[in-house]
């Protein structure tokens, strides 16, 4: 069986309050991916539509979106694993192509978080955990990641300033990304300035500056078999490894509180499948929904030993010219986090990097890239390794 490649990537701008329907939003990422691959809808044999359904008013969005994109009568279906939906979509598309069921599959991620009112959104926020045993205590996504930050600090001596350094890096690159929702630089001083919103507490020890913003957006990744890749594309990017794992949604069902087991496990699978080690990774996109999430990713993926992630950011090793550039597109912290579209956007960045088409943020001559995409608070984890 042959290899599987990505021949086209696209994403919409990530914005607040997208002035259109979910179909129109999905079209933006899809069109860019088709134009990037220089193919038409006839070249797509199946589609996977990825989002988190709690933000949708439309029931069963897959069919509605596939019709709007001109992807009927080809098979289409909906896939959800919260924030890692489109990375899981990549893994499923890989399987379908590898198995020979289809020559080409489009993975389309979208999220219009502004589709529902902020009151509805607030209500749904309360049901983000196990509604039987944890939601009744008033839990929220930032507070769970804050619990990981607290334990990481207590165990390893990581400081709030170390976390702030991750946000400063994000701002450095976010301001260069014309598709990011937040395009301003961030300084360390903002975190100690009571006048700055960045310093405002959200869930201790995390502050506003430690959290990514909601956004509306879409993304698309075109996955094809080896034969088609060679026929259609001058610079195919090969899918070398796809790992995925899950764990208990309840905190009581977990044993690790300063790292995410799903990231460790998905990473190990992807490295093994690709036949590479963390040292071989030239550029990475990690799921920085919160600053602590990027810190843990450094360690869970083997870029640093447990507890030594802070040394990486202090030494700027994860900047563009460092030993392991991470999130040089601004990451979720600057781009915004339209749940179902996020993984596809991360994959897009790595594909552009491997092709040498990343412009101002281009890392020097990368051969192997990695995408780390987490669903919920480490409930689902996906790691994908790509190579040119």
């Amino acid at each position, binding site marked *: 069986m042959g290899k599987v490649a990505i021949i086209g990537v696209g994403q919409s701008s990530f914005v607040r309050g997208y002035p259109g329907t979910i179909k129109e939003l999905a079209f933006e990422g899809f069109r860019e991916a088709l134009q990037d691959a220089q193919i038409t809808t006839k070249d797509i044999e199946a589609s996977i539509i990825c989002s988190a359904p709690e933000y949708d008013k439309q029931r069963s969005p897959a069919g509605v979106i596939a019709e709007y994109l001109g992807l009927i009568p080809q098979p289409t279906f909906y896939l959800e694993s919260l924030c890692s939906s489109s990375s899981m979509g990549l893994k499923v598309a890989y399987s379908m192509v590898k198995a020979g069921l289809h020559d080409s599959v489009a993975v389309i991620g979208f999220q219009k978080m502004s589709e529902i009112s902020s*009151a509805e959104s*607030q*209500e749904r*926020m*309360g*049901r983000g955990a196990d*509604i*039987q*045993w*944890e*939601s*009744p*205590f*008033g*839990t*929220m996504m*930032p*507070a*769970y990641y*804050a*619990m*990981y930050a*607290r*334990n990481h600090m*207590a*165990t390893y001596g990581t400081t709030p300033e170390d976390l702030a350094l991750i946000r400063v890096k994000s701002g450095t690159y976010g301001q260069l990304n014309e598709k990011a929702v937040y395009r301003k630089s961030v300084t360390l001083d903002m975190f100690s300035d009571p006048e700055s919103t960045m310093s*405002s*507490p*959200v*869930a*201790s*020890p*995390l502050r506003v500056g430690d959290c990514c913003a909601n956004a509306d957006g879409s993304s698309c990744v075109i996955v094809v078999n080896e034969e088609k890749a060679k026929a259609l594309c001058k610079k195919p990017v090969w899918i070398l490894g796809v790992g995925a794992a899950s764990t208990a949604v*309840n*905190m*009581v069902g977990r044993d690790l*509180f300063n790292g995410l087991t799903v990231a460790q496990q998905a990473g190990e699978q992807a490295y093994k499948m690709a036949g590479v080690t963390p040292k071989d990774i030239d550029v990475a996109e990690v799921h920085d929904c919160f600053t602590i999430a990027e810190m843990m990713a450094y360690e869970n993926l083997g870029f640093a030993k447990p507890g030594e992630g802070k040394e990486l950011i202090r030494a700027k090793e994860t900047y563009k010219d460092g030993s392991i550039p991470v999130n040089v597109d601004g990451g979720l912290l600057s781009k915004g986090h339209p749940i179902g579209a996020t993984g596809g956007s991360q994959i897009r960045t790595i594909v552009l990097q491997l092709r040498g088409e990343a412009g101002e943020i281009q890392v020097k001559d990368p051969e192997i890239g990695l995408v780390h995409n987490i669903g919920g608070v480490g409930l689902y984890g996906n790691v994908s390794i790509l190579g040119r």
Partner: protein
Amino acid sequence: MGKRKIDVRFSKFGTVSFTSTTKVNDFIDYLEQGKVMGTKCKKCGALFFPPRADCYKCLESDMGWFEVSGTGKLVTYSKLEYCPVGFEDDLPYVIALLDYGDYKVFGRLADDLPEEDVSVGMELKTVSNNLPNGQLSYVFQKP
């Protein structure tokens, strides 16, 4: 034909309960008696907190109850400045996790135990409490 009465005792759990029916509804009766209880599989002896009606280890559903007693180590905690709908009157509040060795307990610090007075690794106990809105819950206190 009489209508079967639905057992909705679980709607009394927490500031806002999101589900009312469960096979472990006796948890609520125990809370009313001042006890925080988990379940124990009668076949393999596995302990579950929060309680489960079914043991995934041996597929058994014959469960007994055990009381959460003694103290657990504070694994981590966070003070919330924002909250989901329905929890506004509680702000700010501190969610936390205790490790009892065989099982863990997720909940909140007692209102009179401020975040500043706790640290990761300290021993705390779990006690049942009545909430101002008439609901039932449990909190963590110093032993």
